[in-house]
């Protein structure tokens, strides 16, 4: 008849990070079960739990010893074990290793496969001894994201371990590491609580004001919250994560309520809720109609002076909300473009540029997705969502309360009177996107993050996933179920947007070689630069274009061409700096002055011819064709003022000039050309 006892281990640490408590409990429980299973020790029901102060595992009905058993050990094959009936060195070595004799051996298998075996008797072992031997290894195998050393530590751990209660029935199991020895007591506020026997654990702890099971703590807390809810006629703003955290911070929960000045209710509710949660671990309170009331609810340890504590907490809450209100008010005086500019000072990830860079990439990717897959969306809305997808990261509010990222963006855009779809989209990109416009930006954002991380080599493997890419990938893929796009193309394009991607590096390498070759062929540096600045990489075409530039440069017309281009280019650069927009195409009805009508008419006349010539890659001739516009361009600039007040006229004029510049850009960026003497 085997004897069975209850096993109890309880670890007292200095206050453990709440976010690690559950992992600690799980790791300890699994470690113990693993050892018991490996040693073939029977055990019954297992319970476990923890708080930031202690973690415990209770295992019922653990056998006090292992059973006697026979272990079969395979030795050499028969034909190598014996030579002419005599044992070989191989067999003697095997026997020596297991301290056995020739008479102990047995055989298994037939013919070629016949081999020597030993049936070794394993004597019963004491469970207590096994635990003494193997417990430290369980602790050493636990691993957490952040660990520390302390003077007594034998191995790193998230916080110093200060006591171990380890009992098997009524007897202490001796274990020692990091200069502590297992005891038959545990700690509460540095006082010892003696545990006479494992089975008495729960009772003794309860008598000492420690509710060991979190579920029980939760029931106590929630029933007290319920009383408050009835008294104040409303409900707390329930939050599972916050509840878990406060239940780990308090071993005998008590409820405290407090209030704050009504003036803070001018802050958006979500901001108040988030501030109290993240900074104070307090719950907010709403009335029956769901409107926020100026109350908060806190979880504390039973026995403190509720009145005093509540008053002190109110003071802290006021100060926090005062800060939030200050940040909120100073943020809303600005505008999203101001904050976008400040993104240049925030790193997205080291070596992957700033958040501003990321935003720019996301914009390009979003545009690419719409254009390549002909997705029916409101293009302007999509591009605005992309443009404002990151701005709130540089607001004071989000700097102080990072959890508000996304929510703050939406709230601010609403305050500033932006289209509601843009505001919701900006929040959606951070959380869960709903409309198609947001989904596109969301996908662009996720792909950019994943591609960037792979460029850095931070590739998830097994449980190694420092950047949480698996989650990003899952979210990306889920959202792709609602939209018909080929990710392959987008990923390739995304790669090309990173300056330090292997793709760009290869590209830059080849371009630098091409530059070299062209230089050796006698082209001038500025000529080469003007044609390489154009976004395609077709060496055949590059050569044709640079030859055209070279040829026309020797002619009288060249100066005319350059000045014409520069006039157009300069004004467009100015307009772009001011953030001016373009129409999709020139709108004839907005052409007012005869000079702009004439320029447009003549532009249309040469356009077909120009495109034809381009198709034949006769770039020299194409430049000559553009040159025909020179007179019209000069007259246009003499008589027409581009940057007029009237937005439609202005936009239209810019669009016209852009169409002309795009023509030039199909051949070269002439702004790179150095003109002697002017």
């Amino acid at each position, binding site marked *: 008849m085997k004897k069975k006892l209850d096993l109890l281990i309880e670890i007292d640490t200095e*206050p453990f*990070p709440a976010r690690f408590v559950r992992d600690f409990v799980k790791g300890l429980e699994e470690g113990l079960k693993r050892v018991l299973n490996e040693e073939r020790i029977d055990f019954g029901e297992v319970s476990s739990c923890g708080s*930031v102060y202690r973690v415990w595992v209770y295992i019922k009905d653990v056998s006090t010893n292992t059973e006697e058993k026979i272990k079969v050990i395979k030795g050499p094959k028969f034909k190598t074990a014996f030579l002419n009936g005599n044992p070989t060195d191989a067999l003697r070595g095997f026997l020596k290793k297991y301290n056995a004799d020739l008479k102990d051996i047995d055989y298994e298998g037939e013919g070629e496969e016949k081999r020597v075996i030993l049936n070794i008797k394993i004597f019963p072992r004491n469970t207590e001894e096994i635990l003494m031997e193997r417990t430290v290894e369980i602790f050493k195998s636990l691993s957490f994201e952040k660990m520390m050393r302390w*003077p007594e530590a034998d191995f790193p751990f998230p916080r110093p371990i200060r006591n171990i209660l380890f009992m098997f029935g009524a007897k202490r199991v001796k274990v020692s590491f990091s200069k502590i020895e297992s005891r038959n007591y545990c700690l509460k506020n540095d006082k010892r609580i003696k545990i006479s026997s494992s089975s008495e654990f729960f009772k003794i702890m309860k008598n000492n004001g420690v509710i060991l099971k979190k579920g029980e703590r939760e029931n106590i807390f929630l029933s007290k919250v319920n009383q408050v809810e009835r008294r104040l006629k409303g409900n707390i703003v329930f939050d599972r994560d916050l509840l878990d955290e406060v239940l780990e911070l308090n071993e005998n929960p008590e409820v405290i309520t407090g209030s704050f000045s009504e003036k803070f209710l001018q802050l958006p509710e979500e901001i108040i809720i988030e501030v109290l949660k993240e900074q104070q671990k*307090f719950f907010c309170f709403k009335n029956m109609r769901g409107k926020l009331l100026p109350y908060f609810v*806190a979880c504390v340890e039973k026995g403190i002076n509720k009145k*005093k504590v509540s008053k002190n907490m109110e003071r802290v809450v*006021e100060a926090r909300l005062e800060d939030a209100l200050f940040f909120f008010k100073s943020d809303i005086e600005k505008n999203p473009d101001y904050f976008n500019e400040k993104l240049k000072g*925030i790193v997205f990830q080291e070596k992957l540029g700033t958040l501003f860079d990321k935003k720019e990439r996301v914009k390009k990717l979003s545009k690419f997705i719409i254009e390549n897959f002909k997705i029916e969306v409101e293009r302007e809305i999509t591009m605005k969502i992309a443009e404002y997808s990151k701005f709130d990261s540089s607001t004071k509010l989000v700097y102080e309360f990072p959890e508000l990222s996304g929510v703050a963006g939406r709230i601010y855009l609403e305050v500033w009177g932006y289209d509601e779809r843009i505001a919701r989209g900006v929040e959606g990109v951070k959380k869960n996107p709903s409309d198609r416009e947001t989904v596109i930006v969301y996908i662009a954002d996720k792909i950019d993050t994943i591609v960037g991380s792979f460029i850095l080599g931070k590739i998830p493997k097994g449980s190694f996933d420092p950047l949480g890419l698996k989650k990003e990938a899952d979210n990306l893929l889920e959202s792709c179920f609602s939209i018909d796009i080929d990710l392959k193309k987008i990923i390739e394009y995304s790669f090309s947007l990173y300056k330090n991607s292997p793709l760009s590096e290869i590209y830059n390498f080849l371009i630098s070689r091409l530059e070299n070759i062209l230089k050796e062929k006698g082209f001038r540096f500025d000529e080469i630069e003007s044609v390489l600045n154009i976004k395609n990489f077709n060496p055949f075409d590059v050569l044709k274009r640079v030859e055209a530039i070279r040829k026309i440069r020797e002619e009288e017309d060249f100066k005319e061409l350059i000045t014409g281009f520069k006039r157009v280019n300069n004004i467009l650069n100015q307009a772009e700096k001011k953030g001016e927009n373009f129409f999709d195409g020139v709108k004839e009805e907005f052409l007012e002055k005869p000079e702009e009508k004439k320029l447009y008419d003549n532009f249309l006349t040469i356009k077909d011819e120009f495109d034809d010539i381009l198709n034949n890659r006769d770039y020299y001739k194409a430049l000559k064709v553009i040159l025909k516009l020179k007179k019209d361009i000069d007259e246009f600039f003499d008589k027409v003022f581009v940057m007029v007040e009237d937005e439609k006229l202005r936009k239209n004029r810019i669009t016209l000039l852009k169409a002309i510049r795009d023509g030039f850009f199909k051949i070269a960026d002439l702004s790179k050309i150095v003109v002697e003497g002017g």
Partner: protein
Amino acid sequence: MYFQDLILKLKEYWKRNGCFIGEGYDVEKGAGTFNYYTFFKTLDSKPWRVCYVEPSRRPQDARYGENPNRLFKHYQLQVILKPAPPDSKKLYLKSLEYIGIDLSEHDIKFLEDDWTSPTLGAWGLGWEVRVDGLEITQFTYFQAMGGIELKIIPVELTYGLERIAMFLQGVNNVFDIEWSKGVSYGDIHKRQEFEFSKFHFEFLSKEKEIENFNYFYKKAIDLLNEGLIFPSYDYLLKCSHTFNSLDAYGALSHEERENYVKRIRGLAKRIALRYLENEEEA
């Protein structure tokens, strides 16, 4: 309890617990950690216990004396126990009792809060200690200093004296703290706060400060090359404060900022290594 009595009480408590009672170090700095008593004395392999008050200047937190909770200059009471004793937490809690906080009445929480100083190349794990939701102390087990893993792990306790005084005196505005009978914190500091805020946000000479930084940096290296570790460290402190000023003024782009931090951290490491070399020879 007056502000001055709070300081005296804490010093008395830590003196009784074997601390050397030191003084703040008279070069501008952002935190007590930069004091010689912490930076150097946590590096070597000798035990050490110290308590001192450090006036700490943070241009970033300047608010023209208008914010009831934020200050350009505040006072930290700093305690180093090296090696960290196993009952560090208990010793700390007893110090709260010693200044009149009844632990059984209040909600005391240790919330995970790990600490890093990018310029000193230092980091540690620990908590912010809260009494009734108010953060009053940073409690840190140092792991590295000057970019060097510490042989002996110390514990650093940084008491926010103003916060504690506000708590004990029940006042809502830092300037209302009674420093001594008839003298308030505001009497001493309010005008200073205003003027230093004005100076840092409106009258800083950006180019000159950048020049200063470069000079301080070079001087620190020159001095170190001469084996003059402590003067070199003074210049590191000057670099650090100049950097903080430039940063608060908004004079630095992100890349520049990182670059400054990297330079100061590199310097801290060289000084730390040199100090250890000397210690080992001695």
